[in-house]
């Protein structure tokens, strides 16, 4: 992407597919991208990746992680490290089979509305899931993307965002073929009375990750009008 000097830089979305990246490593690389975006050296960029098993804590939980149910010994035995991160939201689990997306977007000057940004993220995932025939939606008051009958929704996509001077980072985690038992280690997002699910569980068949990545990219292009 070499449209750097144009404000039109954000009319094209660069997509980086990183494969499986260690959480700490991903955090560093993400930070570097945020600086690049701020400096205007890159345009709006969507990073797609997966993480080895890890539990991450949002800012809200700082110092208190009552929503991790497993003991430190359990977590060590399971080989699941715990990270504090700078994103919004509560606690979540990342692991193989879960598509993680880090949109590095500059919302300045005309998209400065964090609610709208979060709703657009949800929309991108809803559109991507629709390509697989899955009807996903929102639950009033509970950020994220949900599937299932009203009142009994299960979370399929989680959202946690950081905005630094209107540059976005962190983003979403979409359960494709995630080992859902790992969510038993935590109360996802601090919401105790809703379950989690995955695309493969909803469809009852395996789904290739590359197909989901492509669908998500198309979802982003439509939701954010960056096609």
């Amino acid at each position: 992407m070499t449209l750097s000097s144009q404000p039109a830089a954000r009319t094209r979305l660069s997509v980086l597919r990183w494969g499986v990246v260690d959480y700490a490593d991903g955090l560093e690389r993400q930070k570097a991208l945020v600086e690049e975006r701020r400096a205007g050296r890159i345009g709006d960029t969507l990073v797609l990746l997966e993480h080895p098993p890890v539990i991450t804590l949002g800012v809200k939980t700082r110092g208190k992680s009552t929503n991790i149910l497993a003991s430190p010994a359990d977590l060590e035995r399971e080989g699941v490290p715990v990270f504090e991160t700078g994103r919004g939201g509560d606690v979540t689990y990342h692991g193989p089979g879960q598509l993680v997306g880090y949109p590095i977007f500059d919302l300045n000057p005309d998209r400065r509305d964090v609610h709208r940004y979060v709703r657009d993220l949800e929309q991108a995932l809803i559109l991507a899931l629709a390509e697989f025939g899955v009807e996903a939606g929102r639950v009033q008051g509970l950020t994220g993307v949900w599937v299932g009958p009203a009142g009994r929704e299960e979370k399929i996509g989680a959202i946690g965002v950081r905005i630094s001077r209107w540059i976005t980072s962190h983003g979403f985690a979409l359960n494709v073929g995630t080992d859902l038992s790992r969510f038993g280690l935590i109360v996802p997002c601090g919401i105790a009375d809703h379950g989690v699910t995955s695309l493969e569980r909803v469809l009852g068949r395996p789904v290739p990750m590359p197909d989901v990545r492509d669908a998500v990219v198309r979802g982003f292009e439509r939701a954010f009008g960056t096609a």
Partner: protein
Amino acid sequence: MATDVVMPQMGESIAEGTIVRWIKHVGDPIDKDEPLFEISTDKVDAEIPSPGAGVLVEIKVKEGETVPVNSVVAVIGAAGDKTSSAGVTSPAAPAPPVPPVAPAALASPATPASPAPPASPVPAGPPAEPATLDDLRRLRSSPVVRKIAKEHGVDIGQINGTGIAGRVTKRDITAFIDSGAAARPATAPAAGRPTPVGPPPPAFQPGENVRLEKMGVMRKKIAEHMVMSIHTSPHVYSAYEIDFSRIDQIRQNKKAEYEAAGAKLTYTAFIAKATVDTIRQFPFSNASIDGDTIVYKRDVNLGIAVALEQGLIVPVIKNADERNMLGLCRAIQDLAQRARTKQLKPEEVQGGTFTITNPGIFGALFGLPIISQPQVAILGVGSVDKRVVVVDDMIAVRPMCYMTLGYDHRLIDGADAGRFLLALKDRLQNFDESEV
């Protein structure tokens, strides 16, 4: 020259923000656009840059606190400025000082507006406590609110604040001005108009031994609804005592039959049945008030309050009068079960036209429930206990239950409520077994 740092507006629909972290501390030098603090809203954490360069002179909002958009959260001074001598979190003088509207407040020693030199040296230490609630209120309201108040000549102390700790928000003051209340002299409220309610006393004093906990969504909604209801409807109560002997008997006879059909024949089902039939008989009990119009609801949608571990919820049986006993039993069971497991759909708790609540479950003899708006009546059911009563001039032991009707006196008078309760009593005491 000092620069106020305000809680930024992070989106159209966002009215407040929570400060999660101060990146800079009082006394730290800071450049324009350097990250100053982090806020959190919804699922988003945002780093907020400094609006100017200088030294962070004062932090007004602590980590973890939530304030409305545009509230001043910190002050940045020129490089040479002294930091606030009172320390980080002093409720220091609001800048810029606004001439108080109420002349009485001028005399208040705590009004920190006057630059006049103090008669004696001010001792070091915590600043004086604001002398009056008015002062507290003024200190707590944001500069925007104070500016609006000044422009419209409004005494902020007159306004009931809905913000944090009773703070007057921008919405409060604009609503107050729009209502025309500002134009009325505060000392002579028009007859029949409610006198502006004064601010409640502070919930706790600084340094008091307390624990603070944010209200959950449900708690907040219940709190708001109860206050709204009690301000909307003049509540009146009538209580009747009802003999449950016959219902007990029918229940014994039919219990097994219902169990075989997979339903539980409960007192609640009998009460619901008798109540909807009585509602049909007295349309005023199934109504709402719209200005000076009475809205009679043709559907009887019966709400039944269910206590949850924390809070309560009122699932609604739609068209309850169209169901027979078995149908009511099933609906009550299903809704209560799903209420407790939080699986109700939003539409299942909406549209109620009359509510039954059962404080008797917890052993209360009777309750005085508050009406669920926009309904006009609510039935409170007490516990059913064996009591000694006089029947035909003889002393007997009977299962008895107090029922109270809470009703909106704007629409329902005592005689109406009496007729309603008497009819309900008659239905329950002479329950038609063929209906069961």
